[in-house]
Each structure stands twice: as C-alpha cells, then as structure tokens.
C-alpha cells in the first residue's frame, strides 16, 4: 500500500509516494501553470509512472499547498503548515522548530514529537524576508539565485542593509555597488538581514532545538549559515526541502489509509 501527497504551490506542484514504512518510493515535480487541477493530476501520474506503481496501490491521497482544494481526485486536503511540520518531523525526528522560507512567504512552526503543530507564525501582506528579496537583489547584481549563497560566504566585511523591503532592496544594492563594495560583502549583508528578520518572526513562537530549515530558500547555503549564526545553533537542512509539504501530506495519507483499513 502506498500513500500519496500532492503539494500544489503557486509556481510548482510536487507529488510524493510513501510506502507503509514511510519510505519515499516515487516523486515528481512540475510547473503548476494555469490549470491547477491538471497540474495536480499530472504530478501524481508522473510520480506513479516514474516509480512503476499502479494507481490502485494508492490507498489514500492528501492534497496540500495553495491549490489543495483543487486536488479533486484526493481524499482530503490539509494545510501546508501542518504538512511541512509532519514532513520535517519524518526527515528530522528530533526537530521541534521548522523555519520555512519560500518565494514569497516565511513561516515558523513549533512541532511536537509526533510532528504535530504546536504553534505557528507567518508573514502576511509583505514579502520582506522571503526568497523574492534575494531574487531581486541577485538580479540587480547580475547573478543567479544559485550563485549568491556560496558567494556570500566569501565576505570579509559584510555591509549593513537597512531595509528588508523586497522592492527597496534593489536601490540599496545599487547604492552599495556605486560605493564599490564587493559583491561578497553585499550578499553577506543581505543574507544577514533576512536571517535577522526570520529569527525575529520565529522568536514569537519560541525557538527550540533542533531547528530545521525547509522551503526553496533552504537550498541557499549562505542563508543556512546566516541563520545558524543568528540562532547560535546548527540547523537541519534536507535535500528534500522542495518536497517537504508533499512528504508531510503523504505521511498523513499513509496514516489515514492505515486507520481506514483497521
């Protein structure tokens, strides 16, 4: 028996298949595009095809993410906060705080030993301190998102960034470039500003070890280091960070299927 999680995000849709030992046996990642339901179906089918698993072996399907109500072939929908918490807990069983930074949102989740959500906090109305901030800054510097993390680690004298506004950062970066600051120092300053903002946000729900970092921005090594520096503790990062929501959804799916079968 297999449980499936389908995470429909605003830009990408991810599907994960877990067996009843909670091991990943299939996955898919596609662009969401305009038709959300079709994207969910396609991701699910691709995961099945890639794993060579027949549809009737799937006992339960959970939809999550922004488009969770459009996963019409699913059995239920669960919010991404609950799924990220569960997913991070599976990958890092000792985690008690999850920091999730995506393209336009930032969340802090306090989790219990069973991966249940104890408390959470989100940014709203403002994309300060999210991936978009770094993306905009990278563009002004003529760099790609993949480069900026590593580059920031080579700083010797990080600049101090006055704004976390995702739009205003562009002019701040231009000012520093005009002052001939080197790219590494500017990048380190930017990463530090985001880390400070994130830690401020997550402090509202209390930070407990172990801390795990998920979401697209967790693939940025510069951000990982900046957060560790602000928190004064090591943080967990998984190569599965993109799939964390889908993994959590699939965990719920496996649990529900077992309950139904019982």
């Amino acid at each position, binding site marked *: 028996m297999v449980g499936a999680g389908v995470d429909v995000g605003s830009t990408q849709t991810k599907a994960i298949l877990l067996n009843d030992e909670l091991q990943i046996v299939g996955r898919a990642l596609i662009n969401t595009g305009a038709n959300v339901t079709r994207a969910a179906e396609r991701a699910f089918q691709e995961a099945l095809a890639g794993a060579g698993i027949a549809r009737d072996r799937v006992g339960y399907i959970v939809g999550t993410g922004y488009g969770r109500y459009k996963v019409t072939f699913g059995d239920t929908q669960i919010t991404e906060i609950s799924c990220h918490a569960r997913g991070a807990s599976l990958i890092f069983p000792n985690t008690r705080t999850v920091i999730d930074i995506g393209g336009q949102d930032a969340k802090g989740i306090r989790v219990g030993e069973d991966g*249940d959500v104890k408390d*959470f906090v989100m940014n*709203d109305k403002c994309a300060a301190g999210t991936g978009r901030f770094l993306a905009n800054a990278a563009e002004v510097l003529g760099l790609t998102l993949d480069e900026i993390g590593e580059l920031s680690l080579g700083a010797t004298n990080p600049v101090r960034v006055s704004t976390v506004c995702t739009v205003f950062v562009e002019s701040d970066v231009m000012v520093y470039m005009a002052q001939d600051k080197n790219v590494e120092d500017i990048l380190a300053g930017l990463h530090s500003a985001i880390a400070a903002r994130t830690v401020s946000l997550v402090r509202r729900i209390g930070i407990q070890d172990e801390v795990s970092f998920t979401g697209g921005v967790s693939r940025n090594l510069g951000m990982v280091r900046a957060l560790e520096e602000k928190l004064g503790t090591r943080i967990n990062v998984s190569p599965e960070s993109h799939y964390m929501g889908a993994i959590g959804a699939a965990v719920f799916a496996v649990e529900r299927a077992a309950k139904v079968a019982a």
Partner: protein
Amino acid sequence: MITMAVEEIVSKCRKLVEDPAYSAVREWKSSHPGAKAVGCFPVYSPVELIHAAGMLPAAVIGGGNQIEIVHADARFQSFVCSVVKSTMELGLTGQVDCFDGMVFHSICDPARNLAAVFKRNFANQMVQYLHFPQNLDSPTALPFLIDEYNRFKAYLTELAGRKISDDDLRVSISAYNRTRSLVRELYAIRAEKPHLASATECYALAVAGTRIPPQEHEALLRAALAAIENRDAKPKDRIKVIVEGSFCEQPPIDLIRAVEEAGCYIVDDDFLLGWRWFVGDVPEVGDPVEALARSYIDRSVYSSVKHDVREAKAGHLVERARALGVDAVICLSAKFCEPALFDYALYKRALKIAEIPHVSLEFEEKMWTFDNIQSQVETFVESMLFD
C-alpha cells in the same frame, strides 16, 4: 410579525451594514422632517441619551472594505489602524454629512486624536468627546461619569432643540434594553446550537441595529429568532471557538465567514461590543442618568478599552471559554490596535495556564481576499483535530 426566512432577514441586515453612504439614516431623516442623527464612533456610546432627545444614534465605524482611502492618508501617520483613516475618509467624502453630530470616546490615542482632527475639519457638525473614568474602583468614578453624561446631555439638548426629560430617557433605556436582550438571546441560541445560526448571520442581525431605530431592530430580531427556532440544520464537525479582540475596527463580514468555513463554530465574540455593553438590563426606574452611569461602572462587559482593576480581563475570558465549553480561543485583532494587541499578552498567559488552545491573528477592515487567514485558521483547527 414579519414572516421571512432567516436568509432574507440576514441579507436585509447585511445591506444596511455594508452601506458607507448611510442610506438608512438618510431615509429616516427624510421621513421625520426636522429630526436629527448622531454618529457614534466605537466603542461604547450612551445611545439612550441621543435617542431620548428624539435623534437617531448610528454607528460610524469607518468604511469597512466598501471604500478606498485616498484623502484621509494625508491627515494621519501611516502606521495606525485603518478605522481611524476610513472614518476620516467618510467625513472627507461627504458620506457622514447626514449626521448632525458625532461622538467619540476615550478608548485609545488614535481615536482621541481622530476626534480632534474631525472637529477641526467639520465645523458644521457638533463633535463631542466622552471621557470615561479610568479608575472604576474610585468613589469619584460614578459622580464623574454622571457629570460627563449630563454634559453630553446638555449638548444633545442644544443640538436637538428640545429638552430630554427623565421619562424620555427611561423610555429610550427600555427600548435599547429590549434589543440588547434579544441580541443576548440570539447569542445564547448560537452558543448552545451553533448550527442553527452562524456567527456571520448573528453579526449581520446584531449590527443592523446600529443603523436603524431600536423599535425597527426589535422587530427584525424577533422575526429572525422565530425563524431560527424553526430552522432545519444539522451540526457539522467543527471546533467551538470564542473570537476576541474585534471590538472597534470590524472585520469584513466575509472574513467572519471564512473563519467559520475553516472549520469553526464561533459560539461567542466581542464584535461591536459597544452596542452590547451591558451584561443585563439598565434599570428603568430611578434617576436614568445615574442608572446609565452605574451600569457602565458595574454592569458592563470587560474590554480592552475599559481599565478595571477590580477584575482581571483575562480571568473573564477564561471563565467564558470554560462556561461555553469551547475548544479554543482565536484572538483576532485589527492591525495596529494597541488595546487588543497589548491585551493579547495577558490573554496568552492566562489561556496557556488554563490549557485552552489559542491563536493570534490580525486583520484589516480593508480585506477582500481571505485565503491567508483562512489557511491559518485551518492549520489551527487541524492541530486540534489531529490529536
């Protein structure tokens, strides 16, 4: 007795409430030539005094999500609650020119300053500011408030061009006692059988009373209550919550619905608390001004805008939560609302000690999409149902 379905009555109420131009007040004035109306900013207004002068009191609580703010921004700092700006906007765009007077109250700094800014901008409207006593355990609190009400009464007399007799006032107290009692009945039904009347519907029914005379509100409420009793509805699998913190700037009605649809039965709330300020009836015998003042001091609900050292606000919240057997408390505050947000610190600690799950969320009156807040409430509901 009006016989209409609940949905029809609620729809009528909603239209009344979501009207920044105050058509209902204008219609009332044109059908009562010479009569006047007074706009009441949150939280609590002694509306009986206004009514006793033959005038119509109506709530002025900003423009909700029905107006754009394009003029008022220039009069206020950026980081202030929206209701202060939108109320000013209503003034600057002529929407509240149907009011011959406006009354504000000592609830917080932004509101206090709004009163002054309003007064400077609209010289043709009587603008009054009521000071409520802050030390309710002082022996001077009652005489102070009686004096303040008498001062207000003198202004109302001048505005209305007629005296306010004690009997006039007793009749008005009685009228509002009746509507408040019916609203309490509505809330009681909802608390016991929330599937019969949603918080969204109760909201529309209660708040309609802030736009029309109490007699009309009474008729609407009686019709609604009768229809609700006969309603055929099944309970759904939802958690029961109290929503606390929205006593001044009001959430859009659709936000209340979004919270309910996220999996909650809102069995109690403090929406528009000022028009439901008393825990029982105001006495209709004896000196009516004193009865109103005493009721403010001794018979009123706890609130973030009422400083009362005799009682712990957080204790009341916990008591209510336990009495209603709720699963959780949602602290829903307007952005920048200092009274609500500062009190959250007290509530959070008390709720944690009492082991009552709770979450803090912020809203703005100017919201049109509710996905974000709905997701957060859903997550909260999930965290409770998954145990």
